[in-house]
């Protein structure tokens, strides 16, 4: 009798506890101001609508490909949704590490009634890639450290000009963007850059150009680092993602200016790892459906100056959520910002990333 009551009690407890047990979903992204914008625009509203889901943030996107490869090797993928650049999405798709998506059936249609395929358009660069934003890697500089009597730097090529702009620089610790800038600032024509980078001579030329500033360069790997280095006055110029620079200039009022010329356009979006259990895959798809609809993509642009990947989101982009300033002029796509822009050839990088990574890392330690 007593035992029965006890068991009954335990059973009631177990049943009542079940709905409270939230399902964890690990979402991997880039950290800092960017993750904060996703938290505001996607995660918080999604968790409010789905109380059963608990989103855990992981900031491993810079090494997402390596970690997903290692997880696949170990047979235990612990991530549910991963934020990666287009080139990495293509690589992961080729390697069978990312799940293929059918945009029209698995993603939301546009607010204006267009299909997902039409709404995303050219942004769907791989069968596994769920586009999110257009961003650019560009330069910020300390306005108070510009040498007296000289004009402020305007873009990437000023990084290589140690005579006019002495002082430390910060660059991303990977070949993407650095190799292209090195060639374009060494006088190579825009259309020839990737053809040259395929050859040993072209690579040697890019490294030789980078050699000229190697001693003055601090290499960053987390995307919050260049912003910190600029804020501390440790460097005069730093390459950084434009949204990070926006948040340090507009939100924190740091004495930093933008040097947009030859900014490097790239796409960023979600992938869902292959080989998830059915339950987790469904949950991930449900999240992605929500987080990439027209309104959500437009919402993110209220927190950080990245352009939404859907055509239908563009008209909804307005003012900053707290500062109330117009976001349009801060978008990398605003034609007034840069005289020249560089469009990252992500499919080229998907093929050549491993080759150049090995060479670049060896060059760094020499």
């Amino acid at each position, binding site marked *: 009798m007593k035992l029965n009551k006890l068991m009954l009690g335990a059973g009631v407890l177990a049943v009542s506890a079940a709905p409270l047990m939230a399902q964890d979903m690990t979402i991997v992204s880039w950290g800092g101001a960017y993750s904060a914008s996703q938290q505001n625009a996607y995660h918080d509203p999604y968790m409010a609508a789905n109380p059963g889901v608990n989103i855990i943030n992981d900031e491993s996107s810079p090494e997402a490909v390596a970690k997903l490869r290692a997880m696949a090797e170990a047979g235990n993928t612990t991530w549910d949704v991963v934020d990666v650049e287009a080139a990495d999405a293509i690589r992961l798709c080729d390697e069978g590490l990312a799940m293929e998506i059918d945009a029209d059936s698995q993603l939301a249609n546009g607010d204006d009634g267009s299909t997902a395929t039409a709404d995303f358009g050219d942004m769907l660069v791989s069968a596994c890639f769920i586009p999110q934003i257009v961003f650019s890697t560009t330069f910020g500089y300390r306005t108070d450290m510009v040498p007296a009597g000289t004009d402020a730097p305007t873009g990437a090529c000023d990084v290589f000009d140690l005579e006019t702009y002495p002082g430390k620089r910060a660059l991303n610790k990977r070949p993407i963007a650095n190799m292209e800038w090195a060639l374009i600032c060494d006088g190579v024509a825009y259309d020839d850059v990737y053809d040259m980078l395929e050859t040993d001579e072209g690579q040697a030329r890019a490294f030789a150009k980078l050699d000229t500033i*190697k001693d003055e360069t*601090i290499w960053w790997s987390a995307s919050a680092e260049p912003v910190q280095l600029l804020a501390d006055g*440790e460097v005069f110029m730093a390459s950084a993602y434009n949204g990070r620079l926006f948040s340090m200039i507009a939100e924190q009022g740091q004495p930093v200016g933008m040097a947009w010329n030859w900014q490097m356009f790239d796409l960023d979006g979600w992938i869902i790892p292959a080989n998830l259990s059915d339950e987790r895959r469904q949950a991930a798809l449900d999240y992605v459906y929500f987080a990439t609809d027209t309104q959500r993509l437009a919402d993110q642009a209220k927190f950080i100056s990245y352009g939404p990947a859907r055509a239908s989101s563009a008209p909804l982009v307005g003012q900053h959520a707290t500062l109330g300033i117009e976001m349009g002029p801060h978008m990398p796509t605003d034609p007034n910002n840069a005289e020249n822009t560089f469009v990252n050839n992500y499919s080229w990088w998907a093929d050549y990333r491993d*080759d150049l*990574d*090995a*060479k670049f890392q060896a060059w760094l*330690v020499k």
Partner: protein
Amino acid sequence: MSDSSPVIAADGRPLKASLNRALRRQKIRALLLIAPLLLFVLITFIAPIADMLFRSVENDIVSNTLPRTVVALDGWDAASGETPDEVIFAALAADLAEAVSAKRHTQLGTRLNYELSGMSSLFRKTGRGVKKLDMDAPLREQFLEIEEDWADPEIWNTIKANSSKYTAGYFLNAVDLQMGPDGIEARPENQRIYIMLFGRTIFLSVSITLSCFLLGYPIAFLLANLKARTSNILMILVLLPFWTSLLVRTSAWKVLLQQQGVINDTLVWIGLVADDNRLELINNQTGTIIAMTHILLPFMILPLYSVMKTIPITYVRAAKSLGATNWTTFWRVYFPQSVPGIGAGSILVFILAIGYYITPALVGGTSGTFISNRIAYHISSSLNWGLGAALGAILLALVLVLYGLYDKIVGIDNVKLG
């Protein structure tokens, strides 16, 4: 009782057997007592090291992914400098068709890219073209159309050289060598980095050990000779950083050492350094030496202190009373007795330093990083676990050799922790 008859124990058995039995039981009990630790060490230490050593020679991906090509390449002479014939291309086409449908070709490309840069992009590009191949037409031209690099004998030599189940390639790579068509040769000049990195690791570790000794010896001397009250406070100051998180301490050094940091600001304020010519104390070897000396200092001070504590003060008094100067007393009487502490402290600091990687990664920039940072890069970024394992195995062997040398010169019996 004659000599030959065995001594009988109380239970009627021969005493010898009875004793043996008791001893055996004791041994088994002892073994059972240490069994948990033994198992723990086997599972968490010996097995991973063995697995790591195995990974540094394992190499079955080429023969598993391209089985037909590997067989067909048997008849091809790498030294001839000619592109293989149609038969081999046909075998490659069949192998790649299978590999691409299983999405395994990119892994193979990544693996071969460790040996020859350019292989990864070659396999990725070819992988996209394989579906369009016409299996009945001559395949050689079709491959060359997808990517002309297939005409390069070097590519084929790399595939052939890596077709066996086990390879010395990772170890060769770890000492800046490679397997060419005519045997072992040096790697291209721009890829030779590992010998330099090993050298730098040893040089920096020795520098760190030396500076730990120079800074730690006087402190340990004070600790051992001050009054208990004062020396206790001093001891807490030595131990306090020891209890603080490693990352916190390293980040604190970042704040102190950077060009707009506390140290530079102070020097500029005093007027020792010009504002436009601030010292570079971080993101180079100086940064690594300063931060690691601080972090490893307790490992030098503590053994020194416990050895110095046992040196009787009466010896010093005796030397002085016999007319020795302060210096002679210290150098001839005190210092030799503290040598076992120096030995213990130095070996602790050196061996910890040689495998360190968090601190150099944070404050070392590119010139102040260790071989361990490169190992970490191969384990977590490039996923070249074979090369990482080979580098780790060499580092392990290096430490053992240095330890042997140390034993020869200083004598391991001469090392005391207290």
